[in-house]
């Protein structure tokens, strides 16, 4: 291996930070594989026994990690104070989801023994394989594309830092993610995401604090004012951008890899403290990223001063400039970990759709699979899905399709699943046909809007609205197919059905 040669041209604190992080990942995966990988519920939901701290942190990090650390700091560098709108929307939306949506989803999915988002739709709406097929197809397509693009991003970051070929960077990133996800399943993924949350909070609180303290708020604002007064005006980007950035929050309820976090908590009551913790985390990290971007702009003034003239390079660049080498090393490792923690969550959710929904429910007609074989089949699917994602990147047309899908991933998933999910949780009139119509309409409108009218309005907003309208109208038109036991389901979701919430078979097997 040529790694020794690589280590020589790189500063050792970064290597030390990275290797240290990998060692922790291996320990987590080994623990998870040993402690909780006995059944499909263990492998895909941590046995519905996760602590609220892990649920809160892993939900906020797997939802945004790389985008927040690199993207929002870059947005604040370019646009100044207006970047706040990009963080406020999802922060408030996720608070609402944790307090009012997550407990309902947790109660009913526990009662029904649901493992995946398609499971939830089908059992709550008494839908059939058509609804399951629509939902799982959208999930698997978007997740494979997401995973491929995250492997690619990890490879590029890896290559830049360790001075190796990006193709090797990609393969190393993929190998690390696949190994610990295969071995440890959901517990490894959630614990590593929670650890990543600690790294990110550290980076997005300590670094802005150090940088702003070195400048002072007053002089920083004066410099920005002199550079361009619009940097201090949060409305300078125009109403369209403000609405679009707040609208990023509409993507949150439709992310399957975030919704499964809610399903995995040990007790629905613990989602209240999780809401509080997740919001503190979102606020500290989000505003930290904005402060850092603005401070970076005051210091460097133009993008030309940044590596590659790229505003998204601000975070690792400033970490190197302002922090002791070993701390900077840990933060650079955190950027890799950010990318990996998102890829692992998406990989596992895609694999759960293939094993649970496509294989067990649709192909095998709901037949039980022995727990041990289910876990091994799931591991095989994680591996196969990763190989497929990597393979796609090497096929020219397919690689284009991957990046094409990722363009819509956040807004498209939000529009496809957000309204059907919210209607299914809160409105007893929702039907399976209505939910299916919402998924298809949301995804299609987002894509069509992107190509036609996205200069005027972010495609996620009309996609979300069209999806909501489709769920409502089609549900009204198919009102006769409402589930007969809808009142009981609503009681279960509201927690008015006694304290025991999980299915008896599952509780017995714990």
């Amino acid at each position, binding site marked *: 291996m040529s790694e020794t040669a690589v280590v020589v041209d790189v500063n050792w604190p970064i290597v030390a930070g990275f290797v240290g992080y990998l060692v922790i990942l291996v320990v987590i995966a080994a623990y998870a594989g040993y402690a909780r990988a006995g059944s499909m519920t263990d492998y895909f939901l941590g046995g519905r026994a996760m602590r609220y701290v892990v649920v809160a942190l892993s939900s906020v990090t797997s939802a945004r990690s790389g985008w927040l650390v690199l993207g929002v700091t870059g947005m604040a560098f370019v646009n100044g*104070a207006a970047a706040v709108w990009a963080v*406020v929307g999802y*922060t408030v939306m996720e*608070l609402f989801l944790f307090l009012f949506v997550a407990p309902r989803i947790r109660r009913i999915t526990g009662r029904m023994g649901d493992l995946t988002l398609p499971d939830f739709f089908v059992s709550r709406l008494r839908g059939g394989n058509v609804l399951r097929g629509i939902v799982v197809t959208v999930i698997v397509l978007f997740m494979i594309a997401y995973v491929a693009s995250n492997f690619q991003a990890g490879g590029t970051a890896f290559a830049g830092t360790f001075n190796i070929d990006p193709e090797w960077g990609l393969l190393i990133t993929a190998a690390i993610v696949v190994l610990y996800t295969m071995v440890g399943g959901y517990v490894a993924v959630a614990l590593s995401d929670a650890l990543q949350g600690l790294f990110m909070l550290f980076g997005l609180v300590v670094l802005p604090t150090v940088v702003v303290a070195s400048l002072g708020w007053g002089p920083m604002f004066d410099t920005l004012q002199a550079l361009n007064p619009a940097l201090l005006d949060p409305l300078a980007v125009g109403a369209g951008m403000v609405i679009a950035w707040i609208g990023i929050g509409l993507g949150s309820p439709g992310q399957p890899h975030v919704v499964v976090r809610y399903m995995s908590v040990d007790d629905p009551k613990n989602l209240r403290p999780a809401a509080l913790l997740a*919001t503190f985390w979102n606020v500290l990290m989000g505003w930290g990223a*904005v402060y850092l971007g603005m401070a970076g702009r005051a210091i460097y003034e133009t993008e030309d001063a940044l590596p590659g003239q790229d505003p998204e390079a601000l975070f690792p660049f400033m970490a190197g400039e302002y922090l002791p080498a070993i701390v900077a090393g840990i933060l650079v490792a955190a950027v890799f970990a950010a990318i990996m923690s998102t890829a692992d969550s998406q990989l596992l959710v895609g694999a759960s759709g293939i094993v649970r929904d496509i294989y067990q429910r649709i192909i095998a007609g709901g037949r039980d699979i022995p727990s041990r074989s289910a876990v091994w089949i799931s591991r095989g699917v994680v591996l196969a899905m990763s190989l497929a994602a990597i393979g796609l990147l090497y096929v020219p047309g397919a690689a284009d399709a991957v990046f094409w899908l990722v363009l819509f991933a956040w807004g498209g998933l939000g529009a496809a699943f957000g309204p059907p999910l919210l209607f299914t949780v809160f409105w007893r009139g929702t039907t399976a046909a209505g939910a299916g119509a919402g998924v298809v309409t949301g995804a299609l409108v987002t894509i069509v809007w992107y190509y036609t009218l996205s200069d005027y309005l972010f495609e996620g907003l009309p996609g979300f609205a069209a999806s909501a309208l489709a769920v409502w109208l089609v549900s009204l038109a198919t009102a006769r197919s409402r589930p007969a036991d809808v009142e009981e389901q609503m009681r279960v979701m509201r927690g*008015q059905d006694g304290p025991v919430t999980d299915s008896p078979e599952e509780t017995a097997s714990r």
Partner: protein
Amino acid sequence: MTNFVLFILPLLVLALAIAGYVLTKPREVQK
């Protein structure tokens, strides 16, 4: 406006979270 979005708004969001936490405290469920 600048000071509002940079310093007051994050505190308002945190206050909202605390209010949500307090107000969603489960009451005794009527069976």
